[in-house]
């Protein structure tokens, strides 16, 4: 950026003038912050932390582990789906398209209800095929719906990323006599994943947020514990704690992604 061929005398940037719109806007935020601090000082209750602190932590752990496991499961499922989307076989294309459309076109909360309560109706059938132990647990039902849902989104991320890798990479590999599978895993996928890093990180963030829904099917994740604490105390700060925790995770993830992206693309910078 910093050209050193000619040195232009850049006039010192004028001090930015304070304008009313900005002042009012920031004033509102300052007001909200003050009101918040005020509210917290006044409502803060150590006994609440004693009563619910550990529960929040265990809820946080449930949220994190649920998202992590379903993200990985979703990634595995997404691979064949993404390949199906790009396949020449019309049946594979149609099936993978239907999968993606179904899970992206309907609310996750409805999918969770269908899997938890809807499948519960057929417990006799699941018992005979030996799968009831899975559908019996709310945690597994939440995991399944989250994993299938994210698989649909991840398939599209993966497809977009793979298609972003120039055709020449395939052709080059072929001309060197490298088998297709090896080209895919060793040449195309690594390049695709750099492109996909940010969308993947966004997907994790979306999942952390979406996972709050499992609280409704009796899983005590962070949101579940929060509702629990609220229903015992009717104290609004229980929700505020949860909000701060969620924001902290999401922001941490966002900054970690920025950092990782900068590192991974160092070789692309000039």
């Amino acid at each position, binding site marked *: 950026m910093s050209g050193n061929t000619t040195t232009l005398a850049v006039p010192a940037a004028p001090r930015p003038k304070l304008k009313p719109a900005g002042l009012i806007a920031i004033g509102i935020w300052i*007001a909200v912050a003050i*009101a918040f601090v005020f509210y917290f000082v006044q409502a803060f209750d150590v006994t609440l932390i004693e009563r619910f602190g550990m529960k929040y932590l265990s809820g946080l752990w449930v949220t994190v582990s649920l998202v992590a496991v379903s993200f990985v499961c979703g990634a595995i499922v997404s691979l064949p789906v993404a390949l199906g989307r790009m396949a020449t076989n019309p049946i594979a294309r149609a099936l993978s398209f239907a999968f993606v459309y179904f899970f992206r076109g309907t609310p996750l909360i409805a999918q969770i209800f269908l899997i938890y309560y809807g499948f519960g109706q057929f417990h006799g059938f699941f018992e005979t095929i030996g799968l009831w132990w899975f559908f019996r647990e709310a945690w597994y039902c939440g995991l399944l719906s989250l994993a299938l849902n994210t698989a649909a989104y991840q398939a599209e991320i993966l497809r977009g990323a793979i298609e972003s890798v120039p055709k020449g990479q395939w052709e080059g590999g072929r001309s060197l006599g490298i088998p297709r599978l090896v080209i895919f895993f060793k040449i195309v996928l690594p390049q695709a994943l750099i492109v996909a890093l940010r969308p993947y990180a966004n997907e994790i963030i979306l999942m952390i947020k979406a996972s709050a829904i499992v609280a409704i099917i009796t899983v005590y994740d962070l949101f579940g514990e929060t509702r629990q604490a609220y*229903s015992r105390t009717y104290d609004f700060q229980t929700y505020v704690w949860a909000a701060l925790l969620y924001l902290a995770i999401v922001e941490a993830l966002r900054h970690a992604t920025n950092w990782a992206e900068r590192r991974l693309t160092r070789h692309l910078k000039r």
Partner: protein
Amino acid sequence: MRLAQSFALAAALSALLAGAAVAQESDADKDWSTVRIGTEGAYPPFNFLDASGELKGFDVDIAKALCEHMKVECTFVTQDWDGMIPALQNGNFDAIIASMSITPEREEQIAFTNKYYNTPPAIAVPKDSEVTEATDEALSGKAIGAQVSTTHARAAAALFPDADIRQYPTAEEYKLDIENGRLDAVMDDVVVLDEWVKSDEGKCCKILGTLPADPQIYGKGVGIGLRKGNDKLKEMFNKAIAEIREDGTYEKIQGQYFDFDVYGAETK
């Protein structure tokens, strides 16, 4: 100057928001010609929606009778159980008639009328269950269902600390889940469970027994929830409860639902 202005605005806003935290309610000088009643609509036989989606049940009939005696017009608002108290406080309706027990924890938030019924809690298990007694030992590690933020959920956690307590948004969901085998036991009001095990849906299960109602958790029976300071409406409801107890309306309504007394021992 501009800076000063926006700080003034900020201060005014924060005063408003801070006021939010300390303000006291007062319905004292309102003329109650119409009363909005919040109920759940998912707690048969006390309040539920029938097949045509209409609100029915003991709570609903009692509420209608009370309103008739108070000579006020009543409208019903359905509200999910776990948002019932905030919705009352926020003014979405004026009274809760939804089988809500008068507990010390709730009395910190809202006011209650005298009780209008009081029945003990019970525990139900599948008919083929190996659990034969309602003790922590027998239920250790078992999944017990109850409705979220109810006295029963609290009592289950207190009585059976080694069990896995699952909390459901409404009673209907835990019923579905014990029917399909996700739960080993459920805990609720004896009347609710009794009605259910006698019905077609509840044929999976039986009542294991009633449990002693710990007054610390269960309080003084079921009352009508009102905003704190709403003494006028409280007086009106208390008078009407006494009246329907006197003139036989209560027995008539009770007779439509139960063949036993749900009011419990006279208090005071």
